[in-house]
């Protein structure tokens, strides 16, 4: 989960030419980054919380089976937390604890997959457009603008309705998931890449007139290398900020889509649809929203703190 952000980003920094590493021979940029990251206390806290959440949703599935999480007991519905059901039971008597475990897997899966989709699109479109300019820029930006001109929640609703019910259920990691999971990942990914593209392009526009880029170009460095080795690392900060907010945003988007009745379909749980189901019991059964809500907030928070820490850590210009 955090893995993908940390790894891919540190990697590209590691490839970053050592010429402006200020730390001398001992400190590689990677180590420098790690040192800076460690100093960001909230980022470290975020990493720890995230690790704990991952342990919970993965470890939990060894303790409670999925069929237990889906088992109904209407005679014991809306029961407050007890020893048997530490997080209480929901409107059809299912164990909320077990459902937060399996729901968490789905929510995190949706968050990461959707951002992977949007990251791929956003960086590609933004980089090509900002660097090459001209006709490529025009075409790509018209396309971006076309997507952007449609408020994302509207597009999300329209696309969810369009694709909804067209994907059959499928198996992954031994779990049978409702096809709506795929629909939601695709739809969230395809409606959230435009901010990234715009931000990347704006940075490229600004950076490509900088001396070090002009120098690289004069030296005859290939376009691809100029983009990947010179400009991209220097635009990482906004990409990371946007991508981390993106994972959090995707998890929240899933909740919104659920709220509008177009989310992950039963019996598959997600934190989003658990929150939605709790919505009508806000006052009468607070345990229904408290746990999925707490986990959602913790996840979004820790992902953001991690992203924040990374931003400071990976920015070669930050001196700490």
């Amino acid at each position, binding site marked *: 989960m955090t893995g993908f952000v940390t790894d891919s980003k540190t990697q590209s920094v590691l490839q970053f030419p050592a010429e402006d590493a200020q730390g001398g021979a001992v400190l590689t940029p990677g180590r420098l980054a790690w040192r800076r990251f460690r100093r960001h206390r909230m980022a470290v806290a975020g990493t720890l919380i995230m690790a704990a959440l991952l342990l919970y949703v993965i470890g939990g599935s060894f303790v409670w089976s999925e069929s237990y999480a*889906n088992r*109904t007991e209407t005679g014991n519905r809306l029961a407050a937390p007890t020893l048997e059901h530490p997080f209480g039971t929901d409107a059809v008597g299912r164990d909320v604890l077990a459902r937060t475990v399996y729901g968490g897997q789905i929510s995190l899966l949706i968050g990461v997959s959707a951002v992977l989709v949007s990251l791929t699109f956003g960086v590609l479109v933004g980089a090509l457009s900002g660097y090459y300019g001209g006709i490529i820029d025009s075409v790509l930006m018209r396309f971006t603008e076309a997507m952007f001109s449609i408020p994302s929640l509207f597009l999300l609703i329209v696309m969810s309705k369009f694709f909804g019910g067209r994907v059959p259920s499928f198996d992954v990691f031994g779990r049978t998931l409702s096809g709506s999971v795929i629909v939601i990942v695709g739809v969230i990914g395809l409606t959230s890449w435009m901010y990234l593209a715009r931000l990347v392009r704006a940075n490229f526009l600004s950076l490509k007139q900088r001396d070090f880029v002009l120098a690289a170009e004069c030296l005859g460095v290939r376009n691809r290398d100029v983009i990947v080795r010179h400009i991209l690392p220097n635009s990482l900060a906004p990409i990371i900020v946007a991508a981390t907010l993106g994972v959090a945003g995707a998890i929240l988007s899933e909740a919104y889509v659920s709220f509008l009745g177009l989310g992950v379909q039963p*019996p598959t749980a997600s934190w989003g649809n658990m929150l939605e189901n709790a919505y009508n019991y806000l006052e009468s059964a607070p345990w229904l929203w408290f746990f999925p809500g707490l986990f959602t907030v913790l996840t979004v928070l820790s992902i953001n703190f991690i992203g924040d820490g990374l931003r400071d850590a990976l920015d070669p210009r930050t001196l700490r």
Partner: protein
Amino acid sequence: MYTEHRPPRIRALVFALVLALLVTACAPAAPQGAAPEAAAPEASASSVATISFTQEPDSLNPLYTTMWFSGILTDIYLVGLWNFNDAVEPTLQLARELPSAENGGISEDGRVITVHLREDAAWSDGEPVTAADFIFTYEMIMDDRNMVLTRAPYDPYVESIVADGDYTLVITFKEPYAPWVSSIFNYVLPKHILAPVMEAEGTIDNAEWNRNPTVGVGPYVFTEWESGSHILFSRNENHWQQANIDRIFVRMTPDDAAQVAAIKAGDSDIGVYLSFADVPGLQELGTVSIIPTPSGFMEGFFFNVGENGHPALKDVKVRQALAYAFNRDQINQDLLLGLTGTPASPWDLSPFASPDVQPWPYDPEMAVQLLDEAGWVVGADGIREKDGVKLNLRYATNMRDVRLDTQVVAQDMFREVGIGVELINHPSDVFFAAYSAGGPIASGEYDIASWSSQPNAYPDPDTARWTCREIPSAENPVGDNWSYYCNPQLDELFDLQARTVDLDERIAIYGQIKQMMLDEMIWLGVWQDNDMYSVSSRLEGVRISGVDPFWNIADWMIK
């Protein structure tokens, strides 16, 4: 080298931005601030009852909407010949008496209905309401230039409607038509307002009156409609009965949880179409009473016995096993909080329900036995199979919360007897889409479908839903027999009841229909889908009817 020192610009930019936003923000506020004097002159002095709606009416001209939320409003500003009270009996409005064989209102062959109108009825602008208004209404419904939503029952059942003098209507049907009481002239249009529009524009589709029916006939008269916010009605001084409360404020509260919050905060006097789950929380308050109202809607399982359905469902034993395996009393007790019961037929809780037709009991052992008899044996994974086909059924429904909850409980129950169930959910606009629009249910892309159905002209029981001629196909793309069930014997009974005007005879025919449907198990009742209303203890005299909820709004009082 490029850092020019230009602070004024950035400051100007921020300033301009903020200013622009403030202007955007405040501009619309100004006219609104000025509006109230014009809109609500005697605002503070009057008594208001607030009704909250979760959906906004499409139109206030009943010609252009069949929406439930529009239909329940007409008793306020546009009454018809009669409406139905909380005992589901006709209560006279514009008619002077209910036509019957005894008073000569129904001809001997049952084809001609004669209605005498009350002579003291007037439109809210003082014009008398006469038979000409009714004839005009009929003409407007049948005119091709009007995009009318439904022509039932005039097309195809009515032969002619003529006036005999100013206050008598003679309605002739092509053949005896039993459902006339609940379907003719539930409303009437003001000819003196709309005829000039028809003349000028060739249609009344775009008439101003459709949205602002300032001239009506009813205890209240329409005052204003602010889209997305509210519709306001004020007492009609020209009505034969003066209403007690000065004004009725219908507020749109699209979110059901917010609607409940508004009721709890006392911001809404009448809550409409509440969800069952909200009932306990409202009852705790002590400031509102909950009125469960039978409305003819019955939630039930439709089994697809057609080509696209699971082959097992063609076997009546499998269908009966599904009925035995599904503990519907438990659903009613637990999920619906005991506010409902298990219906034996789609006509439960009506005069056409009979005590000798009882729902199938819950008996999983019988289910197992029937499935074994039918040749479906338990496979290695616990799911039954026959000739290599697994007994996995697609169970589809729409997005209503209690349906989704029922789905997962039913899934567990069916699993107990070795039936696998895959859950499918569609939003209503997909779920109810017709065969011609590729609707998944209409096209038979399901095995079990759960929805709530009501006879077309409730409280009349008439329906054609299970007849052979309604099976959808390329030739009949709008057919509504989505079970694909065909039984000529049943068709005959359905045709016979529609022509039988005598009530007792008709009830007897329904006894046969229900028994046949129960034995054949083509519809499995899950719960009586009563409508839930909340009424604030601030109000007195509110008697909600399942057909015309606000039929006695003129009698309502504020304590």
